[in-house]
């Protein structure tokens, strides 16, 4: 009994906003990411494809998520994500959350490394691309976001 009282109480569910970039109409990737996040007990607001920067920024402002996840596979991810980051800055919400992006970020695989460093220095906390993307994203979620999938079993 005492033990139970001394243990931290179950954390409120982590909330993630999931979006794409304004010029990417792909949807299958968004469903995949949504399912993976939910399986880790993360609550998800999926804003759908072709997400306008304004809609992302307003949702971040209004819903106070722990995480913004942008998934894009059309090969123009770097350019479009910089636009998203600029808009978040304009709304003054960029510093309040962790921002990650993943998918196919450039049409030239040799430029992936440059793309990652550009986006990390522009304010992303994680950039996931290439064959290891899913497993790295998985580790990121375990490490950075404090997720307690089965709080009851802790006791």
């Amino acid at each position: 009994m005492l033990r139970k009282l001394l243990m931290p109480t179950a954390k409120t569910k982590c909330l993630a906003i999931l979006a794409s970039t304004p010029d990417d109409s792909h949807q299958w990737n968004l469903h995949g990411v949504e399912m993976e996040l939910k399986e880790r007990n993360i609550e998800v607001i999926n804003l759908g494809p072709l997400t306008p920067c304004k809609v992302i920024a307003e949702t971040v402002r209004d819903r106070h998520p722990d995480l913004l996840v942008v998934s894009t596979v059309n090969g123009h991810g770097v350019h479009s994500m910089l636009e998203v980051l600029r808009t978040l800055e304009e709304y003054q919400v960029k510093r309040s959350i962790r921002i990650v992006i993943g998918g196919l970020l450039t049409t030239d695989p040799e430029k992936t490394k440059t793309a990652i460093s550009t986006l990390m220095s522009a304010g992303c906390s994680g950039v996931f691309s290439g064959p290891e993307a899913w497993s790295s994203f998985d580790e990121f979620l375990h490490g950075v976001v404090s997720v307690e999938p089965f709080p009851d079993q802790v006791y």
Partner: protein
Amino acid sequence: MNISFHDYVSGAARAGRLVVQPRMGFGTIATMSEGLYRVRDAVGLEPRAGTLTIDAMTRVNQVGRATEILRQGKALNGFPIVSHGPQLTRQMLAAVSAPNFAVQVRHGSAFPMHIFETAAAAGFDAIEGGPVSYNFPYSRHPLADTIAAWRDVCRFWAAHGQRLGVPTHIETFAGCMMGQMAPPELLVALSLLEGMFLEENGIASISLSLAQGSLACQDEGALLALGALARDHLRRSDWHLVFYTYMGVFPRSVEGAERLIRDSAETAVRGRAHRLIVKTVAEAHGIPTIENNIEALGWARESADKAANKPDPETKVWAQTIFDRAEKIIVCARSLGSNIGDALGFAFAGGILDVPYCIHQSNRNEAKATVDPASGAVVWLNQGRMPIERAAVRRDLADRFDGQAYKNALAWVRDRYDEHAKKVAHANG
């Protein structure tokens, strides 16, 4: 003068031959003409049709950006028809014209009046799209807005036909919704309903589409059901069936991609389709070249001509099942409005129509589907509010459907064809 698209496909259909057609678009007049010439003149491809695919900027009504990119000499992923304008485009079309060559404009634009106007002024008589199929996958606008916009473009295109003196053609893209993992009864119903919308708004020549899925006998059955339903529901227009090579995650191996393309041609013939939109081996890697297209059209032609038209018993069972389910969806949806446009809007609002995995404000997205890993058939995991019987829902698969199962289903066709290619390579030494 080119033969009209309608007359060309009708002629091939009467001769019992499948028309093959690429999905080809390039930014400059020079490359676009070369592509059209090569399709027209390649030996042994006939009957074949040419394609002029519009670039992504023009599709989303950003003509200024397309013109700017063109001016800078940078690559576009299609032909910016409005930037080039009707005059240059008409000259290009006249140059490739032949008594046995027809060309269709393909675009993917939710609000396409600018494309329709330029295409009409340039002398085209065949185009594609529809209020649902060019909205849900490509835009965030409410369905009501595209229904209104497509009423206008259909009437414009019909009037253009009256001026030309030929029945102008529109192909519905609704049988390709989301590219993969949509059960065929839904695709067949959507294709029919969008076709009925085109007819209602004055279009006299229509094609109904369907995309290749993951099981040949299911696809053949779906095509047969689509033809049977078209005979019942499209009575005022001429129509034909167009089948698409797989639109989902494509094999990475050349051999796997070739097999998939050849299979699509055989399925098209056995399902009695009249035209085939052919993909290329480059689909998994980038924008296909003219060479990629000619090669793939050649495979499709060869396999189509060799395919025997004999449906197996399994195909007949699928055809009946898909016919019954699609008919129920069509009748139910049709009952909701005094015209097809309104009925479509209400049917999506109420979930009578619901496209699995489509995130759009006018789609409920309650229905879910997957590929049955044992048979390869596309099956329901959840029918949402659609009039699909409960027995059609695969509870056994739904119960263990997680992120990994979802990813496996998306890649099922790719993995199976790549695996097959590896085995063939191994057997050959």
